[in-house]
């Protein structure tokens, strides 16, 4: 019986701590000041700058070739729900999946509080969501627990990345900017959480010292109040510092995103939505070639008139395959912006595993760097920040003619090492398809430059002449059936 009472008491205590000591809604304090005008300016500047950057990125993506992605909306939405929202493919590797899930859920839930910060900032309210009563306590309590878990997850991430425990966080393409960027993201996340806890703990202690009750539940900050001064003014300043650091940090981080692999928190969703629905083994058909081949086989076949500019003039001829970023489909460029450089693709690539130069991750990163070099670069990142040590062929970069995605960034040696096994495609948590870009560049090498390795040219001519990739005579094709016997089994009849 005593045991039961104790259990009850613990549950009641947990309930009160979690859902707040004062479930009654109180008057929301309003104190409009110069801070609110300042906040309006900061918010407009932050979101405006992000919109300006987003337009640049959008323009970069749209330099890619047109590809009709309409239709199959339900199928696409369902996939987005599973793979992007549901993190389905992350769970192929459990440890990083759980760590990532914490940060992902933390990001989504804590951002609800950002709505409150925005309203408070604009209208001079203080914790305006407190009208939610017990729900507000649930929200703030959850935020605090998630915030603490995020800090722990980020520490684990930092250790995994920097203590060389995970092979895929090494590699030539992860030097210079990408290496710095990955750590900057982790540091910013810790700073944001620190700001959140500073704000909450200072606010909590301020209220305690003034004998007032702060609406909300603060299971983590209540443990931290001891670290804070007893001076009311200092506490009020600290609360403001935490508040401003949190929101300014978020706005700065938002504008950092387009320069960072962290952009995947936005771009992963459209990328999964627009990812391929056909079997992975199906490579795209080149329609212009279909017309040529049909016309060759049937002289009466009428090749449809080529598309023209609006004024009727002929369009510039598009090459077969891809030499530069504008020869790839826009979806390939969208993918480049959703890559989070996790390296799952490279870590399962048979060529990379056996020491070849090919790294699917590098091809995706090269695509993004090249499109930003040729077109718009975001606020912070510029391709020159991506150190030349990550490039395989610094000499060739000097050659202007060849300073394109193919050769300037991705060498034929990398492309020819691919076994088209689709392991990279299968591994990508956000459905990026490096194989598409590899095949497009192979097409350019073969069809525009006749630059296939010699042994493959031999294979091509064997197919042309013998109908088989090996040098066998077509007349021997049926020889396998010679002297063929089968053991016939029949029940013994009496």
């Amino acid at each position: 019986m005593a045991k039961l009472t104790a259990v009850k008491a613990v549950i009641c205590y947990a309930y009160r701590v979690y859902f707040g000591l004062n479930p009654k809604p109180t008057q929301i304090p309003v104190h409009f000041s110069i801070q609110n005008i300042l906040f309006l300016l900061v918010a407009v500047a932050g979101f405006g700058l992000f919109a300006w950057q987003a337009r640049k990125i959008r323009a970069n993506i749209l330099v890619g070739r047109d590809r009709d992605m309409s239709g199959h909306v339900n199928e696409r939405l369902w996939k987005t729900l599973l793979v992007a929202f549901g993190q389905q493919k992350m769970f192929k590797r459990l440890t990083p999946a759980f760590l990532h899930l914490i940060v992902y859920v933390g990001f989504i839930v804590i951002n609800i509080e950002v709505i409150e910060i925005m309203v408070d900032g604009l209208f001079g309210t203080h914790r305006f969501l407190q009208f939610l009563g017990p729900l507000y306590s649930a929200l703030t309590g959850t935020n605090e627990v998630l915030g603490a878990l995020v800090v722990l997850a980020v520490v684990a991430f930092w250790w995994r990345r920097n203590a060389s425990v995970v092979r895929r966080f090494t590699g030539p393409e992860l030097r210079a900017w990408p290496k710095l960027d990955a750590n900057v993201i982790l540091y910013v996340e810790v700073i944001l959480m620190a700001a959140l806890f500073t704000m909450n703990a200072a606010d909590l202690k301020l209220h305690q010292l003034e004998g007032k009750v702060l609406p909300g539940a603060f299971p983590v900050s209540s443990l931290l109040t001891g670290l804070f001064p007893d001076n009311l003014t200092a506490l009020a300043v600290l609360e403001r510092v935490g508040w401003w650091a949190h929101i300014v940090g978020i706005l700065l981080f938002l504008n950092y995103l387009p320069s960072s692999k962290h952009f995947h928190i936005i771009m992963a969703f459209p990328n999964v939505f627009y990812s391929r629905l056909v079997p992975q083994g199906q490579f795209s058909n080149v329609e212009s070639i279909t017309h040529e081949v049909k016309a060759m086989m049937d002289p009466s076949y009428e090749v449809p008139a080529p598309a023209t500019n609006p004024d009727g003039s002929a369009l510039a001829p598009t090459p077969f395959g891809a030499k530069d970023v504008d020869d790839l489909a826009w979806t390939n460029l969208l993918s480049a912006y959703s890559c989070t450089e996790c390296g799952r693709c490279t870590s399962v690539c048979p060529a990379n595993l056996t020491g070849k130069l090919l790294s699917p991750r590098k091809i995706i990163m090269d695509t993004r760097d090249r499109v930003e070099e040729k077109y718009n670069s975001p606020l912070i990142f510029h391709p020159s920040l991506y150190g030349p040590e990550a490039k395989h062929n610094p000499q060739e970069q000097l050659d202007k003619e060849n300073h394109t995605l193919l050769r300037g960034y991705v060498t034929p040696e990398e492309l020819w090492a691919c076994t088209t096994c689709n392991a990279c495609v299968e591994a990508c948590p956000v459905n990026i398809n490096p194989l598409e870009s590899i095949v497009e560049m192979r097409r350019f090498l073969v069809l525009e430059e006749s630059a296939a390795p010699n042994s493959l040219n031999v294979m091509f001519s064997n197919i042309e002449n013998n109908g088989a990739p090996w040098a066998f005579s077509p007349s021997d094709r049926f020889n396998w059936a010679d002297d063929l016997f089968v053991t016939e089994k029949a029940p013994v009849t009496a």
Partner: protein
Amino acid sequence: MAEQTAKRPVSVPLMADLAARGESPEILFWVGCAGAFDDRYKRVTRAFVRILEHVGVSYAVLGMEESCTGDPAKRAGNEFLFQMQAMTNIATLNGYGIKKVVTACPHCFNTIKNEYPALGGEFEVIHHSTFLQQLINEGKVTAKGGESFKGRRITFHDSCYLGRANNIYEAPREVLEVLDADLLEMKRCKTNGLCCGAGGAQMWKDAEPGKKEINVERTEEALATLDGDADVLLNLQGVESTAPVLPAGSNRGGSVIAVACPFCMTMMADGVKNKERESDVQVFDLAELIASAEGLNA
């Protein structure tokens, strides 16, 4: 019930002959270039024909009218050559009014099934692993009366163009189930299967400079799985999960690496040779295992 056996010569029916007689077979067996020319894979073609003859399904082959599907050309970027091959083959197949194609090559399978429709070739295409699975399910093949695989260790190597490319993972495994053997999965299997190294036209060229051949890496994994060698499995690259628990011991007598693709066959057999394990590990195609278990080899 007692059985008597007899050796019967097989005359493989040619599509042209059937058409001349106004007949149409239930299935067209697409042999593929490896199946027709590669000495090792010709044995798979012959084993599969024995199974077709044994179950009495009506079938035909194109013989000399067959030509490369164009798969290696397409993977290597030669779209022009691919489409020439594809349209020639489509014209042949459509000319005979073919509806259903069965092939033992995952590359031919993938190309005809996925890439021919855009060029006017709509067929029902079945890989021989799925076809064999159907025969087993229908009770037409029991894998009895021939060589016994009971207690022997078999590990199946997924072909990329069957697995990831077309999501066929279970059919070959169900075919192997019927052998009553000791089936072991490699760490990198099914969606995580490691390529043999031959896809994407690699079959016809030397590998780029590196520190290892892909088929050696894969064969090492297969051998370690068959041997139950946990140390080797732990040191394999590219896998973050821990090693599976394997029965200890060195049951090395007559273990089998099962494949379902001519290129995997070549690569794995070369790998076994490279590791000097030909004496106790053999590489077989599913059709060979079934034909031999069914006692059809003559």
